[in-house]
Each structure stands twice: as C-alpha cells, then as structure tokens.
C-alpha cells in the first residue's frame, strides 16, 4: 500500500479496473454499516481487487458513554466482511443528548478525557481483535483546560489502549494555522512506531471575510505547504500508506489518480532512503 484514494461510488467502474502500483482505497465505514444492497456489494467487489481501509467517522471516541451496541455490532460485521487492511477513526466526539453532530468536535485534553477515550478504544479493539488508528482532528478554537498537548495526548492514548495513529497532515496544518502553533514541531513530536497511516487533503479559507480561520474542506487539491509537511514527516519516519482525501467538488477519477501518483512517487523515493 503506497498512495490510496477515497472510494466514491460514482467512480466504481474506474476504481475497480484501475491498476497502479500500491493503489488502495478508503471508505467511510458508516456508509456501509447496513444490512446489504448494491453499495455494500460494490465495496465487496472493490476489496477483491484492492486493499481497503475502513475509516470511521462516528465512533465518538472522546465520549463518557461507550459506543452503542448496535454501532459496534455493525462495525464488527463490516470488518468481518471486508477484512480491511486498516481501520481508523478520529480523536473527537460527536454524540450528545441523542444527537450525532457530523463533525469532529474539540474537548479539553485532560486525564479524565484520556481515560474515557482509552476505555472506548479498548472496547472496540477488543471486539475487533485489532488496533484502530486514531486521527488528529482539525481544530478551530482554543479550548481552555488542556492538561497536555495533542501529541502528548495521542501518545498516552496509544500507550493506554494500544491504538496506532493516523496522522492527517492537512489537519495539523489547519490546526497549527488556526491556533497559532508550529506544525513542524507537531510533526516532529510524533513517534515513528505509532504512525500507521497518513492523510493529506486540501483546505480552504473561511467564507466569512472577518475570519482568519482556514477550513479543512476536503474540497481542493493538496496545498504545497501540506506536501512539505508530509515530506518532513515521511523523511523522518519513512513511508506509510497515504490517503489523498477529497470529499467535495470531486474531480474526475483520472485527476485523483494524477494527484495520487505524486504521493506514490514521494513514497517510493522515501523508501529508497529508508532501507
């Protein structure tokens, strides 16, 4: 697995027949956590040809309540069906009072939050019998009450639960820009042994002219500073499966493959220097 793409149903035929060294696909697990039907069949056909990663967007790892029994049952069923190469979700919370907020919400990084997150992850990993990679979120606000940095929190979480890390380099760039910390320092603080996958994506300026935030939109090509951060990370830790994320304004499959070829070349070049 070198560079992968997010799988879009509209690209099914092209994805199925695509042949490229190291190509793999990632899907949002929740879209396929259903009883059956053509979408699930498309994923099963895809996994016959390519390695597939199940990327969750709804586990709500940083919640006091554990994931629901129905959610876990469906995730387990899907994992058994697909035998994914990688499984992952986000360092965030989504559920509150019966509502699922479809975003990755921030929280104070306390020992208490760490305990909840580690318990929830352990529960899922025990059920699945495999580790989950946890992705760093995009941050837009400075929450008060942190007891540790995000990298310290992630490292502790990996130590307590046995999870790995999915480093979203674009999210590091977005958070660093919005909150005013050094993206380079963040990247340099990630232990190589924990990183199992990398995401790169595009971001956009906030639509509000009075705002200086940048938004993790997944709606633009990967920017040059994000590629530079990416090279900094893999230059130190070596190559990892890398996903080009694109969820809005989705271009033609060929354009995504061209962007993917760039990441693939970087990975192969990195492998040459890490033997």
């Amino acid at each position: 697995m070198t560079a992968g793409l997010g799988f879009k149903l509209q690209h099914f035929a092209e994805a199925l027949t695509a042949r490229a060294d190291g190509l793999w696909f990632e899907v949002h697990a929740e879209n396929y956590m259903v009883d059956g039907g053509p979408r699930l069949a498309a994923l099963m056909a895809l996994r016959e040809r390519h390695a597939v990663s199940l990327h969750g967007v709804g586990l709500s790892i940083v919640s006091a309540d554990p994931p629901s029994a129905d959610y876990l049952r469906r995730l387990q069923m899907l994992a058994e069906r697909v035998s994914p190469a990688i499984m992952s979700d986000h360092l965030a919370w989504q559920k509150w009072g019966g509502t699922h907020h479809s975003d990755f919400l921030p929280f104070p990084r306390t020992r208490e939050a760490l305990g909840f997150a580690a318990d929830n992850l352990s529960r899922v990993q025990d059920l699945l019998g495999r580790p989950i990679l946890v992705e760093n979120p995009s941050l837009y606000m400075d929450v008060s009450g942190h007891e540790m940095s995000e990298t310290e929190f992630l490292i502790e979480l990996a130590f307590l639960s046995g999870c790995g890390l999915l480093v979203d380099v674009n999210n590091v760039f977005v958070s660093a820009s919005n909150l005013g910390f050094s993206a380079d320092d963040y990247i340099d603080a990630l232990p190589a042994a924990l990183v199992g996958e990398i995401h790169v994506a595009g971001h956009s300026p906030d639509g509000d002219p009075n705002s200086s935030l940048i938004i993790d939109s997944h709606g633009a090509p990967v920017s040059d500073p994000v590629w530079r951060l990416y090279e900094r990370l893999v230059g130190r830790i070596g190559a990892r499966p890398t996903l080009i994320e694109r969820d809005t304004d989705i271009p033609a499959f060929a354009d995504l493959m061209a962007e993917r070829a760039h990441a693939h070349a970087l990975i192969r070049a990195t492998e040459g220097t890490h033997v």
Partner: protein
Amino acid sequence: MSDLLSFQRRFASALENPGLVPAAHPTLRRAIRVHRNTAMKAAQDALADNYPVVRALVGEEAFAACAAGYAEANPPCDPRLCIYGRQFDAFLSGYVPFGSLPWLAGMARLEWLHIEALVAADNRALSSTSGQIGVDTRLSLHPAVRMLAYDAPVASLWLAHQPWAAAGAIERVEWQPEVALVTRPAHKVIVMVADPGMAAFLSACERGESLGDAARTADEAGGDVAQIFAALIAAGAFLKLEWRNR
C-alpha cells in the same frame, strides 16, 4: 458532573444556539459557527442525496432552505448519514412554503422507502414459479420490498423524474391514486406502479395468505393472476423458499 460532560453540555448548547456565545469573543463565535456549519452541511447534503426527486420538484434553493429547517428540527441521531431523513415526509406535511404541493410528503415517503430498499438485507429472491410452489404455498416478501398506497400518482411522478424517462413524461402523468411498489432485483432498486390486482395479491401474501387465496383476491380486484405473479417474480418480490426461516 465530570469535566468532560460539563464541557460537552456547554459546547452542544452553543452549537444549537451559536447566538448565545458572547459577542466579546468573536473568534470563539466564529469557531462555533464553523463546527455548526460542518455538521449542518453534512446533514443537509445527506438529505439532498436521499431525496433527489423532492429536490428536483421544488428546486435546489427551496430544497436547501427546507433541508436546513429539517436538519434543525430533526438533527441526525445516527452516524450513518446514508440513512438520514426518516421523518422528512412528516416534516414536509407541515412545511408551509410547500403548502401548494400537499402530495410532496407522499413523494418523500416513496423516496424513503427507496432508501430502505437500497440498504435491506441480501436474502435471495424467488426466481422461478416451478418446483415446490402450489396453491397452498405461503410466500414471504423479500426484505427489500416496500409498498405505498397514496392518493396521488407518486410512483408515476418518480418514474417521470428519472434520468432515463422519456421527454414529456411528467406532463403525461395521470392524476389519480396509486400504489407504488419498490423492489430490488439483482442489486438494483426499481419502482413501479402496482395495479389494483397486483397490490391486492402482494398484500395478501404479506398477510400470510396462501397463493390460492392471494390469487382469488387479485382476481376479485380485476387482475390477470398469471401475469401479476410473473411480474412479481421478475421484480424479485418474494423470498426464495429456503430463505424463509433464516
């Protein structure tokens, strides 16, 4: 209350009422808006994906306003946004701006049944009338089968809005009550208009009546039973016999 819970309670209430965040903290206000917009946009996009015909009927702009209202009133409670929008038909019945289209709720209901059919279990469908099937046989419906009796021609309108519909199909829809039948043969969801005989036959099977009794009911409703049965088999409406008790 734990620190995390008390933070999440305050954060969730700010997401619901971003106006309550003090104006003295413009950066915080904007960040809450960004989070709120992301979550709302995901819900509204999912609704737009799941209700393409309602969207086509009212236009993008009117649909977007309506979807925002729905997402506010019925935010997702399940991370699986691919099945978001279960109560959209009920919401539309009370949605004043579309008051001149009272049957729009029926179209929403049909589109929801389409989603249910799309994600239903993959049990095998009965593919032939030969073998152990006789007048005493009681057939079960395939898990993807849905029926909707409505006092407007929502199935015909749905069909007329598909990309493959003939030009002028919308204008030719006859305004009358209809039974819509949704099935999923060979992994493709299809919608058809069930005539009274077919609807009677399928309803009888659903109630657990034997094929003989279902045929009598269909005959009384004025249907050609052999034709109806063949059409339902072709549509994958029945469960393969061996799958009934699984």
